[in-house]
């Protein structure tokens, strides 16, 4: 498989314009400006089959086509670099090692919707990443790829790197817009969708870093070359961030449809220390956990992971070996969502803290009969009852942990203590395993 997204990162000084150009960088941007109309560009990306890599998997070309062409308001393109889904660290790698690929992708997407002001919204904690992007934007501006009358085409575009300030919810596109408007990162009700009523009420498209970084390759090599990779509905390649109890953690680029088990065992070296796999979260902490026996026939594409009862999400693969206490793992994730709920919708604001408290008391050996039903009830009342997907993201993993590892939870409640390892931590496995 040819690498689309990680094609440059191992080259020395891959973050510089000179190296990026020497590897064909900005060739796609020139091609777009010189030979393609926005309509043709959108068609090309539709044909590539590229789907949004932020988690939802919505077709990128179609998302762009929802932007009205006759709207007199300014249009905005935003690169979502607010990578915060637990278990996901792929965007950070591209930001730090191949920032020009993100910039070129952002320019191409902005042109597709005829935006003249684009933003890269980067999570606040990525101070180094923001500095790399700022530097790369300055280089690209100096070289005439950004600014007024770009490469003599008559097309103008300003690109602003904007830092968030620490809030998971700002990765959700309407919360990101609220944040960029200078408010709390509160999601907005959809419809209307950002494509018609986005930043400051203007037509806006928000695309993930990984989605945008794939565009230069797609334009340079053609939609057909991209669509030739992957499965019927999940085209191309995808980045997977692999963490937890795994021999070789890291970011991997995989052709869609690659067998999950083979990936974990052959590519990532499997579970270390001779332990057995207990469970794996395939798409970041908001996605339902899968038991070891459930991944046997799963392939790494949207449809196959969904058929197995979870979702591909952001591709954040969190591996847990047999020494992991699933009660404590579930509590850890519930605590994350309780901490990050923006507080706008009652079911999520109240429910996330409630689930966290009940998981915690079970973990502490103070669980009561009926606690599991209580969590499932709360989770069920959050699902679908909030204005953004955060509620579902908190509810789904909570319910999945209980359903998949019911016996362990029951045992915890009955014996009032952990039955896995020493029960003192999420994992009793050797700490600080160096890989």
């Amino acid at each position: 498989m040819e690498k689309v997204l990680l094609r440059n990162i191992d080259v020395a000084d891959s973050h510089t314009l000179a190296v990026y150009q020497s590897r064909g960088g900005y060739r796609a941007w020139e091609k777009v400006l010189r030979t393609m109309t926005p309509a043709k560009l959108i068609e090309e990306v539709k044909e590539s089959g590229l789907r949004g890599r932020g988690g939802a998997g919505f077709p990128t070309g179609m998302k762009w086509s929802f932007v009205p062409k006759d709207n007199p308001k300014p249009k905005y393109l935003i690169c979502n670099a607010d990578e915060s889904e637990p278990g996901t660290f792929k965007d950070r790698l591209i930001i730090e090692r191949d920032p020009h690929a993100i910039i070129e992708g952002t320019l191409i997407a902005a042109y597709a919707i005829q935006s003249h002001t684009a933003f890269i919204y980067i999570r606040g904690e990525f101070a180094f990443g923001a500095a790399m992007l700022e530097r790369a934007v300055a280089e690209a501006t100096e070289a005439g790829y950004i600014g007024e009358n770009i490469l003599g085409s008559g097309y103008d575009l300003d690109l602003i790197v904007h830092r968030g300030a620490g809030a998971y919810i700002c990765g959700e596109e309407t919360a990101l817009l609220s944040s960029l408007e200078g408010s709390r990162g509160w999601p907005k009700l959809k419809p209307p969708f950002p494509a018609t009523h986005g930043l400051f009420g203007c037509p806006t498209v928000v695309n993930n870093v990984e989605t945008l970084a794939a565009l230069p390759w797609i334009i340079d090599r053609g939609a057909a070359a991209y669509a030739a990779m992957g499965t019927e509905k999940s085209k191309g390649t995808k980045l997977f961030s692999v963490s937890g109890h795994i021999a070789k953690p890291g970011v991997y680029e995989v052709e869609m449809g690659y067998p999950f088990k083979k990936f974990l065992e052959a590519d990532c070296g499997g579970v270390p220390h001779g332990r057995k796999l207990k469970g794996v979260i395939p798409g970041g902490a908001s996605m339902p956990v899968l038991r070891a026996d459930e991944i046997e026939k799963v392939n790494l594409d949207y449809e196959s992971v969904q058929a197995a009862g979870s979702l591909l999400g952001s591709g954040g693969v969190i591996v847990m070996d047999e020494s992991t206490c699933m009660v404590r793992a579930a509590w850890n994730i519930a605590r994350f969502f309780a901490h990050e709920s923006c507080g706008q919708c009652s079911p999520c604001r109240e429910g996330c803290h409630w689930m966290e408290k009940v998981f915690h008391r079970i973990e502490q050996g103070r669980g009561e009969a009926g606690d599991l039903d209580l969590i499932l009830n709360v989770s069920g009342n959050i699902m679908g009852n909030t204005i953004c997907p955060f509620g579902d993201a908190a509810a789904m993993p909570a319910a999945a942990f209980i359903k998949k590892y019911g016996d362990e939870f029951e045992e915890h409640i009955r014996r009032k203590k952990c039955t896995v390892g020493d029960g003192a931590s999420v994992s009793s496995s050797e700490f600080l395993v160096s890989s």
Partner: protein
Amino acid sequence: MALEFSSETYKKFEETVGRYPKKEAAMLPVLYLAQQEFGYLGPEAIAYVAQLMGQSPARVHGIVSFYTMLTMKPIGRYHIQVCRTLPCALKGSEKITSFIGKNLGIDVGQTSVNGRFTLSEVECLASCGTAPMMQINDDYYEDLTEEKVAAILESLK
């Protein structure tokens, strides 16, 4: 005594606001400038930013209190933030946190008496492949061991 920006920072403020299509969009970068200049965003700093941005102090307070990186209280010179989310927890972040606490003689949420260190636990910092990890001010420290952490703390003491 009312707080205000130095003339140099005020210039940066004007440049920052000028970059954005609307003034209010510059709120976060302006709050960063204020936090850098004043150390933290207490009521006086919030009132000053509100006045600069043409908004009410209550609204600015609401924004500051929403984001974890904006702080309303003074913190130590080195803000140690250990990730506590699942991928780091699976690799022993809890032991790292308690090791730091013991080493510095403070609990999570506290600042050392000399004002040098504040210890916090934070949620996922997108460095899960090199867990456990922590952030001190702007820098990431990854693949932590107790030995590594001891050396890092020593270099900052």
